[in-house]
């Protein structure tokens, strides 16, 4: 069995390659049922239905973004009404400075809501995914480069309580995995 990375360092995970999205998908279902927790599958594109196959729940990013948007709206309300009605009210085209002037402020409220939501969505996603990240043990494994082209991989991390170098390898082999590799930390 191949070994990747610095053999002195502790084992990071046991990684294996599958030949297609389909086989990876079914393998994932088995692993899920086997009760593993710290594992992941890698593919060049998001595979339809893989979340269920891995037993993952819906992403909670949307909830964060909601609050991001809310902040935007509040900010806009303050920045428009604050100066126009309280800090420095001016007579402009004989328009009132009370609540009736709100239609004029809708565009700005809307734009700021969108802006802050978008920021939260993008950067929230990166943070949840622990990105940007310069390196990762899996990158020590040359075959893993194919993941961004047409490779389908699975890695079961050593820290997983159910992880046992021997049994896990057998399990993966039984699922049709090839190129099983022990990936070490660096």
């Amino acid at each position: 069995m191949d070994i990747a990375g610095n053999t002195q360092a502790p084992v990071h995970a046991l990684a294996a390659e599958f030949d297609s999205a389909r086989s990876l998908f079914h393998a994932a279902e088995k692993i899920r049922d086997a009760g593993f927790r710290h594992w992941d599958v890698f593919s060049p594109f998001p595979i339809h239905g893989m979340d269920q196959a891995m037993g993952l729940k819906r992403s909670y990013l949307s909830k964060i973004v909601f609050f991001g948007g809310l902040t935007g709206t509040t900010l806009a309300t303050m920045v428009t009404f604050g100066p126009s009605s309280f800090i420095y009210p001016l007579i402009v085209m004989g328009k009132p400075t009370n609540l009736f002037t709100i239609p004029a402020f809708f565009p700005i409220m809307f734009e700021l809501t969108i802006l802050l939501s978008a920021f939260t969505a993008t950067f929230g996603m990166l943070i949840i995914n622990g990105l940007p990240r310069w390196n990762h043990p899996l990158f020590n494994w040359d075959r893993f480069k194919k993941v961004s082209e047409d490779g389908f991989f699975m890695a079961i991390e050593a820290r997983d309580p159910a992880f046992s170098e021997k049994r896990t390898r057998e399990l993966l082999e039984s699922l049709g995995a090839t190129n099983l590799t022990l990936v070490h930390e660096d």
Partner: protein
Amino acid sequence: MKRILKHAPREKRPKMWRSLGELENDPVFEGLLTKEFPEGASVNQDGVSRRDFMRLMGASAALVGISLAGCRRPEALLVPFKNNNEWTIPGKFLYYSTAMPTRFGVMPMIASTVDGRPTKLEGNPLHPESNGGTNGFAQASILDLYDPYRAKKFTHKGQGATEAEFTAALAELRKAHQKDGGAGLAFLVDRTHSPTRDRLREEILKQFPSAMWTEYEPLGGANARGATEASFGEGARAIPHFERADIILSLDGDFLNCNEMGVGYARGFYPRRNPDQTGAPVNRLYVVESAYTLTGGMADHRLRAKASAIPAIAVAFAKQIAAKTNHAGLTSLVGAYPSPEGEVDAKWVEECANDLLTAKSRSLVLTRPQQSAALLTLVHGINEALGNNGTVIETAAVPVSKNQTTIEQLTDVLKAGRISTLFIFGGNPVYNAPADLDFASLLDSVPNSVRLGFFEDETSQHSKWNVPATHYLESWGDGRSFEGIYSIIQPMILPLYSGLSDLDILAQFIGLSKTEGPEHVQDTFRQLFSGGDFSASWNEALRKGFVATSAYPVKTPAFNAATASAIVSKAVPLIASGIELVFTQSPSVDDGRYANNSWLQETPDFVTKITWDNAALISPATAKKLGVKTDEDDQLSPYLEISSNGKTVKIPAYIAPGQADDSISVALGYGRKNVSHLMENVGFDIYPLRRSDAMRVLPNVEVKNVGGEYHFAVQQIHANMEGRDHAREGTLERFKSKPAFAKTMGMDGEPLPPNISLYTNPPLTAPEQWAMTVDLNTCTGCNACIVACQAENNVPVVGKDQVIKGRHMGWIRIDRYFGGDKNDPEMIAQAIMCQHCENAPCETVCPVNATVHSEEGLNLMAYNRCIGTKYCANNCPWKVRRFNFFDYNQRPLDELYFGPVVKKGMADSLQMSKNPNVTVRMRGVMEKCTFCIQRIEEAKISHLVAAGASSRNAKPMEEFKSACQQACSSDSIVFGNEKNPNSRVARLRNNERSYVTLKYLNTRPRVSYLARIKNPNPRMPEAERVGHINTEEEHEEKGHGETGKAHEATNAPVMNLNGGALKA
């Protein structure tokens, strides 16, 4: 402040700080402070030094100067304020009375000075012949004072010289001519109506009996003098009283043009024009003229006629009236008049004559002073027959000036070579003398020619000695108004550059010493008003600006038919056939004297709205005949070659509606070369065609259309209102039946109901709510307000190229619309400035709050906040916002496009001319009319000061005027606080005639207009056309589509959408 001392260093300049030091513990001065007038003023007559005089007068100035009335400008104040003078408040204006010499008499003026420099001129409202109004020339004359192109140095035969050398040379000449008794001595001067100059002239003619004295004005009224004297005896001057005239007939006269006739006539005419007046009926004005004038624009009935046909028409009138009054005198005149040619609209003349006869001794017939003596005399005869002489017309006895010669007589003598010394004061004969006299070469032949000139102009280039002339605000002088009221011209500032006045030279020539002070004028004053306390009356005259009792004695005119018919019989008949050329006064440069005044150059012509140019004005019909095609949108025109006996002038044509067919009018005073950079390539010189026998009209000229494309800089391209009723008028009878007709005209009645706003506008709470009304009934469009605004608000000049691009900066513009038949349309003028809408569309679109509203209803413009998005200007329906596309203040007009590669900066003297209370705007910011907010604030501050501890509403704010209102001689513009129900503006805003433009937008403008009322005579031909410039009845059915098509169809500048409907 240092910049102020631009004038040459002067010996014995008063040291103010020292004098003040003296003054502080000077018992005399203590006394002065308690008295209104320092005895010193009289004391100084007993040989007290000049400086003491100044000091004492300075003290009295301190006592009286702050008020409107002023005293002699104390020289002490001309010293930079190293140590401030306790009586001047920095930044606060001091007002002094002075006067401006013009060819029709002096105009009484109030000069505002700040920190020792005059910045603004206003008319003197106390003067019986003025109502505080001014004309454009008077307003712009302040710029002449600071003109960097002024003549600055003495020169002799082109070499620089000193004043001392000149004084020596003058003494030489004096010696020389004392020998020959003045045989070889001649003076050629412009008209100033200065008693002091007359006194000195008499002195000279005493010392040099055979000297010649010639007055020449290219647009002067020498004929009028002759005619009046022939009709009413020696020294008579006919003085019309418009306030007494019900019916007025003007035969090619432009008496409402304040540039030509001064503001005097307005005072009488306009009150009688007002339909709201009680008692007297609204007057009716008939005008016969060849080209549209301001008077023609006001006329109830206007007859287009060639200028060469005016005599024929006058005779036709005379015949009618003589027949119906069988007045012997007039009959004899008609008999004596050699039968003139020219087509006459008999029906028009007959009906008009009948109308005049209905108002015997309450009517007035007049014509242009430049007309032939015969015609002028005939007109006097007509008035005599109508019984107007003595009722509407009075004659004043003007002191007769003996042994004066005409320029023709002078040139004869020059040709004979009998003149060795020729003094030329002012004027510019080489440029503007009749071409047939060939003055230039004659002048070259004179061995000693002395020219006192304000510029180094054409005449200077042909003179041996050149003396820079002082501006009238730089030297003492005096003058009489048209009716003879005496005013003192007191200087406001030391000469910026070394210079002399005509009085200085004359005085020195008769052996008097040159004086800094008013001595010569005072001598005259003493002579004229002997008796009484001299200093008291002198100071009184200075304070008020005139001597009330000094008007010429008025007597009832006694018409002398015999002498009159003698003149009449000498009439030279004009050829009425063929195309005629009429020489007109330019509303911008007069006879050429203001050619270097950029304010005036950029002020549009009244009728054509052309700036920086004159043009050969022709009627649409004549244009067709000559094959002249113009591009309306880009104002491109072909050239005409106008030639008459050997001389040819090439000048671009411009199609002017209302022009008589086969008549070309060209404004004088343009096309001056090699004088200053500013005058180059501005307009075309028509003087070469002007002959001493054809000073007004040159009949039967050859005209050739030589093609080419000339680009005019026209401020208003589209002359047709497109049925939009911005300027509204109606007939008197319509007004009587429905006084508020204007309120529901066009879109304000059907079809458009006013918009209703979604929310209630927050009320404007300030105690003052500023508003303005413009009375179209009296606004002729004379441009005085435009120039006044320019002077008051530091409005920059942009130059011809930028005007072509549509970037002129004027805060107030005068829209001129034509309506009716495109050959013979009606004209209406409308002054448009920022409307200060309560719901201003410009405000809401500004992203940076640079333009917002004040609690007083002003639409404010914060220059330092403006970033120049130009959005406000787009959204202004009146298009009154002006954008600084370039750094107009900082860059020469011909280097605007060079950007940073050329150095910027404003001439020092021009910086002095700016109003210190108004920001000079920079490139990239928007600007517009502020309702003269600086004046508003000044008034508010002084109101608060006056109120002191007591509540500020204890007594009402003192009345003050906006700059345009103050300049308006016809009192069309009224500005004030509409919240005060007794204010004029409040009353006029509630007048039935008042309406606001674009009411349906619901912007609630603070400027409202009063509709114009015409008073047509129903029996006149085409009377039904009068007073229907709006034609709103038609345009409701007619959509704009058709109208536009009509407007595309032809490329004449005037298309009335409903013209067809009107004619049919």
